[in-house]
């Protein structure tokens, strides 16, 4: 485990998201944004295990996964600001990203069968690739999740579904949304299941390392629940959660755990490097022209 590298990724996500909120408040972004602050350990631990040819499918809260997989803050910022050079030319924006083998879509659970089909295709063609799909606890309300779990179990495909349980579906707490248990639901389909409450990369990294090695070897699905917390609001503003609860999770900030494993000098160097990188990207992207639409010729 290279903690320096893992902290670099975590801090990049944290700072990118924090800058986005600042740019948003300055009116420089289009639409909305859902920040990943507080959940960085999950994306970094899981995605660091993957090769370039593995596939990641993410959701509306996808910036952390994207940065962990593609390390492309410039393409992402340009996309969200609608500038030329955006990774999807400004067509997708914050929730709809695609680069190499990374995809995200903004419909809750709708992409899960897409990830399933991709995993099927990889197994059908005999590759070593696996698919990792990230969903949240809120998505467990969608029926398509269970259609997908059933098929994933029947087809035995190399699919890892990571459920990031941050306890809130937008504003509604999990207790109001979830009957029974996540474990009970997944186990009913005969799928390998694991659950951990952690924001600590030194726990999550070796855990995902084992899970992903096993999926690659036996080519069967696995569902892993990580109980975590988002430290920011669902999107930009309104947050009605109990401040005491938020404060308790601030003490379990994933960045705190990983910093404990690094020397002060290492931390300072990384933070300076990331801040400089983001500053120069932001300056550059702000000057770029907006991307334009090129219509095909109509009949």
């Amino acid at each position: 485990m290279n903690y320096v590298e893992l902290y670099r990724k975590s801090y990049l996500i944290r700072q990118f998201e924090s800058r986005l909120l600042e740019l948003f408040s300055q009116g420089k972004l289009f639409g909305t944004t859902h920040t990943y602050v507080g959940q960085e350990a999950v994306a970094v631990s899981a995605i660091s295990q993957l090769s370039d040819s593995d596939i990641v499918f993410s959701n509306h809260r996808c910036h952390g996964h994207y940065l962990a997989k593609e390390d492309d803050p410039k393409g992402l910022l340009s996309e969200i600001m609608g500038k030329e050079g955006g990774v999807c030319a400004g067509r997708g924006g914050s929730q709809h990203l695609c680069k190499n083998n990374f995809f995200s879509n903004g419909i809750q659970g709708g992409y899960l069968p897409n990830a399933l089909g991709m995993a099927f295709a990889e197994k059908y063609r005999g590759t070593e690739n696996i698919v990792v799909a990230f969903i949240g606890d809120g998505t467990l309300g969608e029926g398509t999740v269970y259609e997908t779990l059933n098929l994933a179990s029947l087809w035995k495909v190399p699919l890892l579904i990571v459920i990031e349980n941050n306890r809130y579906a937008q504003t509604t707490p999990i207790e109001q949304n979830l009957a029974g248990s996540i474990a009970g639901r997944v186990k009913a389909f005969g799928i390998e299941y694991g659950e951990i409450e952690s924001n600590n990369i030194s726990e999550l990294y070796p855990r995902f390392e084992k899970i992903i090695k096993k999926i690659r070897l036996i080519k069967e699905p696995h569902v892993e629940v990580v109980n975590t917390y988002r430290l920011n609001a669902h999107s930009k503003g309104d947050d009605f959660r109990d401040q005491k609860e938020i404060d308790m999770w601030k003490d379990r900030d994933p960045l705190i755990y990983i910093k404990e494993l690094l020397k002060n000098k290492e931390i300072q160097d990384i933070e300076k490097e990331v801040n400089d990188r983001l500053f120069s990207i932001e300056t550059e992207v702000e000057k770029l022209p907006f991307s334009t639409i090129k219509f095909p010729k109509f009949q």
Partner: protein
Amino acid sequence: MTYLESLNTALHELMQNDNVVLIGEDLLDPYGGAFKVSKGLSTEFPKQVISTPISEQAITGAAVGMAMRGMKPIVEIMFGDFITLCADQIINHATKYHWMFNAQVDVPVVIRTPMGGGRGYGPTHSQSLESMFLSVPNLTIVAPSIFHDPGKMLKKCVNNANNPLLFIESKVSYPKNLIQGKDLNGVHIEYLPESNNDSLLLELYPEEQSDVLIITYGGMSEVAANCVYESFISEEIIVTVLVLGSVKPLDTQSIVTLARKIGRILVLEEGCITGGWGAEVSSIIHERCLHSLIKPVSRLGSKDFPIPASMPMELEILPNLGCLQKKVVELAK
């Protein structure tokens, strides 16, 4: 050869390519699919026929994922009515990815499904819902009739598709013999050479000026063909039928050329009349051909009503030869 045999043969040919898979419910032999279009396939190509649980959204979505990884999946949705269960996959996934990801991925998925009534299956197994998908960008909708070569059209769709395509089969046409290249009661079939969209003309007397143009597609084409014959026999009205193979995009060129030439037009579809395909075609004709029109474009489709199971009541809801002829006579006056 029947409509169904043509499709079944085409699927056998398509599956010579092991990148082509068929995914849907109850596909395996000896059953071979609810309408038997997939008969024999699972025996010959066991790895390529994926029979699934009753999960239309997930199987459509899985096919989308396969297509994004370079496969050529064909989805069979047992009844066209169930396409509503696939709507999120079609609208928010399959047809979005290519454009919204700035052309970084293709989604060559073909969704086959039978539409239409006339078999007494009742309100949820008899509809023609394809017009609900007309306003979905990046979606192609193809619908062969018995005057087409459905298998050839399916092969073209699967082999050439880069984007999602709905392939609408006509339930009542499955057991019928294809009329391709032959005459039906003296009605001549002319395949429009300039059209890439499989448009064709049905005419009794190709050299003579027609009184009325009927524009239609799919299962209604046979009703329109019968109307050509009956209208001349009973009223001496000369009717030309433009049968479209492509529901979307429309063969606007053929529609406009013929509309200007004939001037009295009836648009015929089996789907409900309100907000339907006919409304779109009619609107294009009014926009492009107003000064050539002798009368306003007339429309005929199903009444805005659920389709009853009982045959006598079903006949009152679906368009039939009787009401079509009545409309033709009114137009020709």
